[in-house]
């Protein structure tokens, strides 16, 4: 039986999902959830993996509630989690502008923006909580942008018609993360959180069907240890680094969620990847990561390529009538402001036609010449100065003189571990929050919604729902390092690292990462086809086999060894990539960030197939290279009725 011959198992049902009117569901669930006696909370230990917006806020809040939190991050400080790099802003239905915004409108926009592949209940809860997040962050001292009256400023973001995005210059993620980090720091100082920086989770310990701890490696000494708890929370972020080049941090990885998946947590919608249209193109093979520039640039910049193939004249020598402003041509009413997925795909298409610009023809122009003419250089500088500076620093080109070059890059993964309404995975006691879960964004995430979801999960949802699980499980049944299951998991981890060190081949971990990443970008990137995905699915096991034959990891496991860390992460990418391709192959429709060339309208737009695919695909692991089992969770839309998106 080959990998693609997956079987379809029993449908998955979200048993925690409350019924009734959508706006009452969160209250209802909170009321029905059992509570833990405050005096008993100290006796419960909760492990939190990751210290980004979701993990940092969850760790701090659980500790405030009285739980004993043991928290991990691979970075040298919890303050460095990659949430810090988010630029744009955070959405909240505050309606401070009196422009017609409401919880319901944010709910509606998010379900629609996700191309009808998210749960209504979850999204509505997210919209409700959004307003509390802003209050919480302001109380913590997050320096949001303010107006002269001293009140908070908001802006419209990502083509949305209301101004609901709160921001702190171009560093909203940084400021929100530091807020969570500071709250966490307070709990660390109070002794309520035991923080383990530079410690990476390598496996999950499941005893009697419940998540009871993790195996983690101290990255300084190399010591592998076991940690036990009554519940485990994964807040380890997304898996965009499968693609090698992405806007993720270099060390962001999928190991925590992938190891949990191998231990029984189902993985939902792995193929839903968001590709952001305005990134700085790669300059050569040495490229290690890609840098995003805020999509607000598309408000004033015009995107074009030469009309002729292989036209390598410098941009200013290409006359106006030999330029193709393709977004304005194809989408006359939305023009350069079409949603992220459409803008990305259009850029790919013109580059595939051989009309791309810059090194390797992998780029399109984003031209501000007209904006400078219209508004004056000063106004452009005031609006985009910091982005122009960043661009100039990286490319050494002056965007005031020469059009910027941009190209899409992997930015966010909507897929992740399947969770119920309580954010619990299919392993009891294992929770996944933030980008690590399959989330509330459906098949496409709207701008400024990632920060909102991470903080909603960490500050408000998980701390309310985890009580129910802890209250229903008896205190005092302890697991210790001597338990045979623990011994087995520990031995497996040690063996894996030992094997990586002992192959002593002739290829570096990076070379394999790059190879699988390029394969994924080509066949499971912006546009996917049946034949391409099958090609990738044939190739991935070969790369995996070659990996275990030719990998070279210098040094030992008992020291600070960044090559070993990397190699171990690549092991998991090589398995996850396969599942992503299978999920993309099985979903023979186009929706959101997932574009199947076979499923498009006559004018080339994404065609959803609601009768066949209105479900979340949760995959059950059956062994490396073994066909997984698909469990479908049907999505029901009572409030927002599916329509085909149209931007022409």
């Amino acid at each position, binding site marked *: 039986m080959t990998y693609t011959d997956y079987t379809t198992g029993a449908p998955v049902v979200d048993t925690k999902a409350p019924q009734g009117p959508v706006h009452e569901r969160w209250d209802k669930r909170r009321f029905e959830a059992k509570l833990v006696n405050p005096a008993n909370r100290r006796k419960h230990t909760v492990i939190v993996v990751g210290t980004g917006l979701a993990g940092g806020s969850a760790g701090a809040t659980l500790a405030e509630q009285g739980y004993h939190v043991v928290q991990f991050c691979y970075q040298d400080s919890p303050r460095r989690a990659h949430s*810090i790099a988010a630029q744009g802003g955070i959405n909240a239905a505050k309606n401070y502008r009196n422009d017609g915004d409401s919880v319901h409108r944010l709910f509606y926009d998010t379900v629609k923006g996700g191309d009808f592949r998210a749960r209504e209940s979850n999204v509505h809860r997210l919209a409700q909580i959004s307003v509390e997040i802003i*209050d919480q962050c302001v*109380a*913590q001292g997050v320096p*949001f942008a303010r107006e002269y009256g001293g009140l908070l400023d908001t802006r419209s973001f990502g083509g949305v018609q209301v101004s609901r995005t709160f921001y702190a210059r171009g560093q909203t993620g940084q400021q929100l993360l530091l807020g969570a980090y500071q709250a966490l720091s307070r709990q*660390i100082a109070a002794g309520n959180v035991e*923080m383990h920086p530079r410690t990476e989770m390598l496996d999950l310990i499941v005893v009697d069907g419940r998540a009871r701890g993790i195996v983690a490696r101290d990255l300084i000494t190399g010591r592998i240890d076991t940690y036990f708890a009554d519940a485990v929370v994964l807040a380890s972020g997304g898996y965009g680094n499968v693609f090698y080049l992405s806007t993720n941090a270099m060390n962001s990885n999928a190991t925590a969620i992938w190891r949990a998946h191998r231990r029984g947590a189902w993985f939902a919608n792995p193929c839903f990847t968001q590709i952001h249209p305005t990134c700085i193109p790669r300059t050569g093979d*040495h490229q290690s990561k890609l840098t995003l520039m805020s999509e607000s640039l598309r408000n004033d910049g015009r995107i074009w390529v030469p009309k002729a193939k292989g036209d390598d004249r410098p941009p200013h020598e290409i006359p106006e009538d030999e330029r193709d402003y393709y977004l304005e041509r194809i989408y006359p009413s939305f023009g350069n402001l079409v949603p992220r997925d459409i803008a990305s795909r259009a850029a790919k298409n013109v580059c595939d036609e051989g009309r791309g610009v810059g090194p390797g023809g992998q780029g399109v122009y984003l031209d501000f010449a007209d904006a400078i003419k219209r508004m004056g250089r000063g106004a452009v500088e005031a609006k985009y100065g910091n982005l122009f500076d*960043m661009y100039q620093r990286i490319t050494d080109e002056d965007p005031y003189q020469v059009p910027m070059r941009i190209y899409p890059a992997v930015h966010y993964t909507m897929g992740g571990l399947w969770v119920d309404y309580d954010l619990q995975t299919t392993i009891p006691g294992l929770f996944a929050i933030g980008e690590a879960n399959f989330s509330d964004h459906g098949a496409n995430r709207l701008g400024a919604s990632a920060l909102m979801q991470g903080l909603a999960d960490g500050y408000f949802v998980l701390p309310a729902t985890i009580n129910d699980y802890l209250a229903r499980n008896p205190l005092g049944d302890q697991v210790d390092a001597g338990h045979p299951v623990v011994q087995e998991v520990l031995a497996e981890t040690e063996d894996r690292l030992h094997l990586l060190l002992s192959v002593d081949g002739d290829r570096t971990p990076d070379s394999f990462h790059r190879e699988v990443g390029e394969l994924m970008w080509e066949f499971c990137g912006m546009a996917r086809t049946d034949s391409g995905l099958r090609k990738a699915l044939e190739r991935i096991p070969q790369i995996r086999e070659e990996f275990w034959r030719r990998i070279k990891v210098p040094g030992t496991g008992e020291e*600070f060894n960044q090559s070993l860390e990397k190699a171990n992460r690549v092991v998991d990418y090589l398995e996850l990539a396969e599942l992503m391709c299978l999920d993309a192959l099985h979903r023979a429709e186009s929706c959101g960030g997932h574009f199947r060339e076979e499923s498009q309208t006559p004018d080339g737009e994404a065609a959803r197939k609601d009768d066949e695919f209105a479900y979340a695909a949760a995959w059950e692991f059956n062994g490396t290279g073994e066909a997984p089992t698909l469990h479908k969770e049907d999505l029901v839309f009572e409030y927002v009725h599916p329509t085909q998106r149209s931007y022409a």
Partner: protein
Amino acid sequence: MKLTLRVWRQKNADAEGAMSTYEVDGISPDMSFLEMLDTLNEELILKGEDPVAFDHDCREGICGACSLVINGDAHGPERTTTCQLHMRSFSDGDTIDIEPWRASAFPVIKDLVVDRSAFDRIIQAGGYITAPTGAAPEAHATPVPKPDADFAFEHAECIGCGACVAACPNGAAMLFTSAKVNHLNVLPQGAPERETRVLDMVAQMDEEGFGGCTLTGECATACPKGIPLMSITSMNKEWLRATRRVGKR
């Protein structure tokens, strides 16, 4: 480009370190400094040698992980983070010295990697506003004058990289500590803990073994986020104010 690199190599915290010399060839001016080191490391791994360890993560100038002293300058010749420094700032044939942050409060872990957990402990000592989740009032209940909000933001921009300590001839952490004190102390939300915050954070800063400030200004020159030297003055003022007030209580 062809370059000669002299890199600080140190097996672990207890080992003696020394500069080792490496040649790298085929370096593109478009590479970032860290990508140049990636190139070196790929070669070292294939040769069976231990690659150079260095901290890095976001590679877009915001996480604060990267931390190299390049030719004697924290983060190198440009005013930015190491990850945003590009090889076009160097010339073919250059010899480049690469060293770790040096301060006794930042002990070397391996090669160019240092332990900056002292910074975390300074924040833990008081670099927060006590606002438990759920207890927050409506965000618009307390307006913050725009100049104060901007002042707070300017200081909140600190990425905690430690370049200020690395550049300071006294290994002082004044700029880092003052950035957080000023960010929180200017806001009305931070007012109730205004005195204890600055006193506790400064006490922790001393406790960690950072040096004192002689106002050389090296920190502000090295800071990739442009935290101004005047930030230290503001903290001194806060500290004196707090000392007077707490003394009266």
